[in-house]
């Protein structure tokens, strides 16, 4: 049986044998790559020496304790190298292949595709972006929904992975135990942190997490940024729920219950800087310039982060990681504020949209399309936006008679949510702007057609979306319907009163009787005026466009209903007078059928060939 001293001697010898500062052999090999016996012997030796260290007091043999002291340091230095070596050999980035193809992300699935086509057709709008370049509205939606090539299995909750095989974990723990007991915890934490941090960094690279400054992000085109946000959302979910969670678990496995919060210290060393780097991106987005087309992506980002917050809180629960939790919460609220700001920006932009060039043919203005598509998307996001938008729109003085600004009587829309009020306000503002634009038409009739077209479009859009309809309410919908009908009526009056005036009875009879009392001159003038007016109106208004088939037909029918009977009756009463005179064909240019056919040309947006129209009289 060995004396305790002998055991100590042997232990010291083992430790000295593995001193890499003096032995070439010790430098060439690693203990923990040798066989189990070698490892156990070494650990046991360390324990032996440590045990001795704990039992001695100052008054003991200085020389001996000095030597043992020295041996401990040599052992610790060696163990530190071993520790580092094991860590380095398992520092591969996280495995992403095991996370399979995604289910399409929450918001942007099918509804995106329906609005996409309209968006792609419409013009660039509110051409402001980070760099003031003009970009298509398609970008509003395109980034997320299209082809999400590599995505990760919907990382919807924390899933810890094994980052290091368990036998290596066991070895690491063995080493950590000894280092901490000997008072070398700081060295241990430092080595651990530096190696694991670089592993996290390479995982970041694999996940596509970039190192971008706020300036970099500001300079990016929205299209590019849009895509990066989508990528970030996917990556962040993996980072928080898989990567960081796994690192935490690893720290626990190695350091738990070894005292002095080593597990927490190591975890912080490993992930604090990467976490800050990760969130810096979201933070930069939250403080970037607010322009309306970013709204939906910002909402996506907001929702993703909000969803992640509980997991962030769980993974970063310790006191030392408070700043990360705080930062994440701050970013969420900034994103919410940004979203609110963007909605206001949008409302202002709709009001201020300054284009004065009238849309040819009085058709749907691109602004109308853009706004209605935008509103539709808002209604898609009503769950999130509904929670974020807590106050109604700033609508200007309700009581002012100032007709230079739109106003909305909130009392008219009682019981509607603040978000719904915003939508209604946007429609009000849009109409206001459209009214203004309609004034640039020289022809009043065209102005009315324009208004009719656009408000009808608004109504159709609302009717086409159950969510939108529910939010705006049937009451206001009715009001809008009334408005476009009113515009149609105004058009009728503006164009046709004059034309039909030619077909009136008064002024044609010299006496009260029928036949011989008709002034042939006046009659001829009437026919000529009618022909000229109708031809003019026909030629011009054929070029106008009512895109909605049903509306177009309705208006054509409405015109016919007034025109045809009036002409038929006029013709019936007075044609014989003309036919008994010279050149009747100069005065009766149209048959009733001609007129019926001609009416069908109206609002088709095509030029009519005047000569082909000549038919039998």
């Amino acid at each position, binding site marked *: 049986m060995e004396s305790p001293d002998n055991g100590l001697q042997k232990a010291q010898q083992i430790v000295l044998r593995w001193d890499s500062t003096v032995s070439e052999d010790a430098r060439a090999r690693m203990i923990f790559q040798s066989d189990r016996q070698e490892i156990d012997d070494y650990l046991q030796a360390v324990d032996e020496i440590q045990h001795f260290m704990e039992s001695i007091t100052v008054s003991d043999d200085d020389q001996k304790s000095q030597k043992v002291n020295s041996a401990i*340091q040599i052992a*610790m*230095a060696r163990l530190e*190298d071993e520790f580092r070596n094991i860590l380095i050999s398992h520092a591969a980035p996280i495995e992403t292949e095991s996370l399979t193809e995604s289910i399409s992300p929450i918001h942007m699935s099918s509804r995106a595709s329906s609005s996409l086509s309209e968006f792609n057709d419409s013009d660039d709008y509110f051409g402001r972006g980070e760099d003031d370049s003009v970009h298509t509205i398609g970008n509003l939606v395109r980034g997320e929904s299209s082809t999400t090539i590599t995505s990760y299995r919907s990382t919807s909750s924390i899933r810890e992975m094994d980052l290091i095989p368990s036998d290596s974990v066991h070895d690491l723990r063995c080493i950590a135990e000894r280092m901490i007991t000997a*008072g070398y915890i700081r060295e241990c934490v430092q080595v651990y942190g530096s190696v694991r941090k670089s592993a996290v960094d390479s995982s970041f690279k694999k996940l596509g997490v970039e190192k971008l400054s706020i*300036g970099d992000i*500001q300079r990016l085109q929205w299209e590019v940024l849009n895509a990066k946000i989508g990528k970030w959302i996917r990556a962040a979910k993996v980072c928080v729920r898989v990567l960081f969670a796994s690192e935490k678990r690893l720290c626990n496995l190695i350091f738990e219950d070894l005292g002095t919060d080593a597990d927490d210290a190591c975890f912080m060393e490993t992930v604090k800087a990467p976490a800050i780097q990760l969130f810096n991106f979201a933070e930069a987005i939250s403080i970037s310039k607010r322009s309306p087309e970013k709204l939906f992506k910002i909402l996506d980002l907001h929702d993703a982060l909000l969803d992640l917050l509980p997991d962030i809180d769980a993974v970063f629960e310790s006191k030392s990681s408070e700043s990360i939790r705080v930062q994440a919460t701050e970013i969420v609220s900034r994103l919410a504020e940004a979203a609110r700001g963007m909605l206001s920006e949008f409302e202002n932009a709709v009001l201020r949209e300054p284009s004065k060039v009238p849309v040819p043919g009085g058709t749907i203005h691109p602004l109308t399309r853009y706004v209605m598509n935008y509103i539709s998307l808002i209604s898609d996001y009503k769950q999130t936006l509904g929670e974020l938008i807590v106050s109604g729109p700033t609508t200007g003085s309700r009581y002012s008679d100032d007709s230079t600004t739109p106003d909305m009587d909130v009392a008219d829309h009682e019981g509607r949510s603040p978000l719904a009020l915003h939508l209604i306000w946007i429609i009000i503002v849009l109409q206001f702007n459209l009214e203004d634009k309609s004034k640039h038409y020289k022809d009043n009739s065209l102005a009315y057609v324009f208004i009719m077209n656009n408000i009808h479009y608004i109504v159709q859009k609302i009717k086409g979306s159950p969510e939108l309809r529910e939010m705006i309410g049937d009451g206001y919908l009715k009001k809008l319907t009334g408005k476009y009908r009113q515009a149609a009526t105004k058009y009728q009056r503006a164009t046709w009163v004059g034309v039909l005036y030619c077909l009136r009875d008064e002024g044609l009879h010299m006496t009260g009787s029928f036949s011989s009392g008709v002034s042939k001159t006046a009659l001829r003038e009437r026919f000529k005026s009618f022909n000229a007016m109708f031809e003019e109106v026909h030629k011009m208004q054929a070029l106008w466009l009512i895109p909605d088939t049903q509306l177009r037909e309705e208006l054509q029918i409405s015109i016919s209903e007034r025109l045809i009977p009036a002409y038929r009756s006029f013709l019936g009463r007075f044609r014989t007078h003309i036919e008994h005179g010279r050149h009747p064909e100069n005065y009766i240019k149209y048959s009733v059928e001609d007129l019926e056919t001609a009416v069908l040309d109206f609002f088709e947006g095509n030029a009519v060939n005047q000569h082909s129209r000549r038919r039998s009289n």
Partner: protein
Amino acid sequence: MRTDYHGSSSPNITNFGRSILSMKRDPVVHSIDHETHYQDSEIEALQRQVTRRFHELSSVESHELLSVSWISKLLDVFLCCQEEFKAIIFNNKSVLSKQPMEKLISDYFERSVKGLDVCNAIRDGLEQIRQWQKQLEIVLCALDYQKPLGEGQIRRAKKALTDLEIGMLDEKESNTNLAHRNRSFGRYQKDSQRHNSLKHFRSLSWSVSRSWSASKQLQAIGNFFPPKTNEILATNGLAVAVYTMSCVFLFVMWALVAAIPCQDRGLQCHFNIPKSFIWGAPIHSLHERIMDEAKKRERRNTCGLLKEIHGIEKSASFMIELTDSIQFPIREEKEEEVRKQVEEMKIVYEGLKTGLDPLEKQVREAFHRIVKSRTEGLDLIARGNE
């Protein structure tokens, strides 16, 4: 809303007129001079505040300049000036959307965004210093020992000191030219294998891309000029407020970059504040003092002018020399020297331990205030345009 100084409803031009005339007559005129004070007493107050506070900052002893506590005071000054400036902007929101004010203030906000990246870089830099602080902790743990110093402790301390030197050298390497790169460094060579692997890990400490440059940021932040007289007139003096705040902003960012390690730390930055701005003098004087510090031989290749960094460098190199010269069995005088040096190192360590966390919080606070001020300011401008 703040009412006019003389209670009239329109700006009183005669005061301006007088001030312009006297400026023309005598170019070296102080804006506080009663003859030439501006209509707007808020702007006056801001300038007085800046003057006073920067005088305070510049009248510190040289051992306090650029220390953690001084930087903390600097940030305090920044936050105060920022708040006052914000109040002035808010009180004068009706002028914001008119030119030339709109351009002046929008440009200011653009520049302030550049400061955000600086704040983030400083945060990284503070983390870097924390790493060095942790190294010191190991050294102190090794040497600050009840029992007589043994070879084991000395070796442990030496190891930590080597790591510290390597770490700080890496920092310098990324900022200095190639000539210094191959400087041999004693045990640095011996442990070069370990050093290479360590180096790899250390170079990942920045959270920005390799191309980010602190000096370029400073250049962008410094891209503004003293206001012209017609600008001052047209903006009711607000152009002076913007200029004042711009200079404060630039100086603070510059000083932070000078003090704290960050990527591509260039100190070339010129402050050419016209003498008519009385707060220019303390700023110029501080700038000069800091540049003098930077030119000192022992600080020329430092990774940051922070006093505590110098403290780390000094006590570390002193300790290395000392421990190198130790022969065993250790003599009592040597042990005494070590203990003394340990006490010195402790002071540096304690300073960092208590100072770094609050400083980080302050930098973060500055970040938030800059963002808030900008967001609210841009909002005011947008609303003014409605």
